[in-house]
């Protein structure tokens, strides 16, 4: 019973891991705890967007429940 956080591209590179398990809470709370455990994320997160269970997330106050997946997406650079 936990939240799965998936980190991509520059966020993965900064954290040094592609996936983490964290305790349920608000998105902002989860991000704060990630920065505490992986300080290099501090510079990347302000540019990122987020998916909660594959849906775009606009309110960092949203609650993330156990068994959910939070994706951290740096700015796109396709093409």
């Amino acid at each position, binding site marked *: 019973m936990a939240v799965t956080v998936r980190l*991509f*591209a*520059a966020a993965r590179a900064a954290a040094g891991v592609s996936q983490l398990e964290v305790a349920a809470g608000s998105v902002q709370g989860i991000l704060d705890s990630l920065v505490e455990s992986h300080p290099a994320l501090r510079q990347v997160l302000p540019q990122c967007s987020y998916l909660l269970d594959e849906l775009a997330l606009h309110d960092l106050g949203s609650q993330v429940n156990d068994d959910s997946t939070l*994706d951290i997406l740096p700015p*796109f*650079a*396709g*093409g």
Partner: protein
Amino acid sequence: MANVARVLVTTEVISVSDLAAAVRSNTAGAIVTFSGDVRDNDHGREVTSLEYEAHPSAQGLLEKVASEIAGRHDVLDVAVAHRHGPIPIGEAALIAAVSAKHRKAAFDACADLVDEVKAQIPIWKHQVFADGTDEWVNCA
């Protein structure tokens, strides 16, 4: 309403002639293609290797973008492919192809498609430079 002929997110080589063939028909008078190729330089710095990373949702989102383009322009067929993983210098990362009865719609739709792919598809580019440094593009 136009048809989405092919949408592909793949680690394999992608080719302009394949995508152009996918949108070809006897009613189409104009086919416009775009190929975004891996360059050996970026902002004046020499690039030695390059890799794209794609989010698992990229295929589905690329299909959605292709459908939007097909609905927004007076075109016949739309096809788009994005390669990920390591890509050698000079090979294509993104190819788009649009057919239409008339050329202006084909040019407009193809340019619009490329813009939307760059803005909306969760794909990232990692470049390694000749001086040993590297960067995730667009991530200051």
